[in-house]
């Protein structure tokens, strides 16, 4: 039976820029960074407290994954902010919000009280958006 999730993919426009965003700004750890040939790279990162969850920063390229012009369509969708890839958690939402803002992360929504708790929304360097919530006590 399925017991856990160990990989999840986030489609990014540029892997080097995404590396800077996720590692240097969000503070994620590099899990695997493998050169697979000219211009090809397998890059996974993980949140500091989840070293076994690999977030694949997936390049959008023509090929088996994206055929017949789908890569260009996908890039446009990503750039438009179509995709929200998940919900991140932090110990203190206000502090994390101030810190990430100071590091240049763009927020679509400041910490706001919702019926389910406090939430902020930020976007990555490609346009993907994420919810950021505070760990429940």
């Amino acid at each position: 039976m399925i017991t856990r999730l160990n990989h999840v993919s986030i489609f990014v426009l540029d892997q080097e820029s995404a590396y800077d965003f996720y590692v240097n700004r969000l503070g994620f750890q590099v899990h695997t960074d493998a050169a697979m040939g000219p211009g090809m790279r397998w890059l996974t990162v993980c949140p500091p407290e989840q070293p076994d969850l690999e977030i694949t920063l997936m390049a959008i390229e023509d090929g088996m994954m994206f055929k017949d012009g789908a890569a260009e369509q996908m890039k446009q969708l990503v750039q438009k902010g179509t995709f929200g890839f998940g919900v991140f958690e932090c110990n203190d939402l206000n502090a994390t919000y101030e810190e990430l803002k100071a590091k240049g992360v763009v927020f679509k929504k400041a910490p706001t009280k919702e019926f389910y708790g406090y939430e902020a929304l930020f976007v990555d360097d490609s346009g993907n958006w994420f919810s950021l919530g505070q760990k429940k006590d």
Partner: protein
Amino acid sequence: MTTPDYPRAYLYKRIVAAKLFMDSHFSDDIDLLNIADEACFSRFHFIRLFKAIYERTPYQYLMSVRIEAAKKLLQQEHSVSDTCFSVGFDSLSSFSGLFKRYTRQSPTEYSHAYAARQEQIREIPLQFIPACFADQKSWTQKSNFEEVN
């Protein structure tokens, strides 16, 4: 010194500024009392607020930043002694002891283990990539990705 009744956002900004200062000046001989003064808190309030937000005292946080920086230097094949002094420790034994407490490996063990893993990634990268993605990217010779239904 009592803390004025500022809006919470302003309090957070001051604590976060102190944290970011430690992030960028970790290798300096940081006086945490100075940081508390700069943030306009008494030492007691600074430590209390910092710990409430980051679940660690400022000193514990500073040590963790130094250890993370040390890991990066060891990954870049710096020597243990160079790493120790570069990140702000003044004693090799203190550094090694603290490093082992944080990572469960000595600096040398960590350095060797990291280098060995990087060598594996260079030599056999497909071992680290789920086959379905490797196939989709045409990184494998054969592609057996086909719809089941």
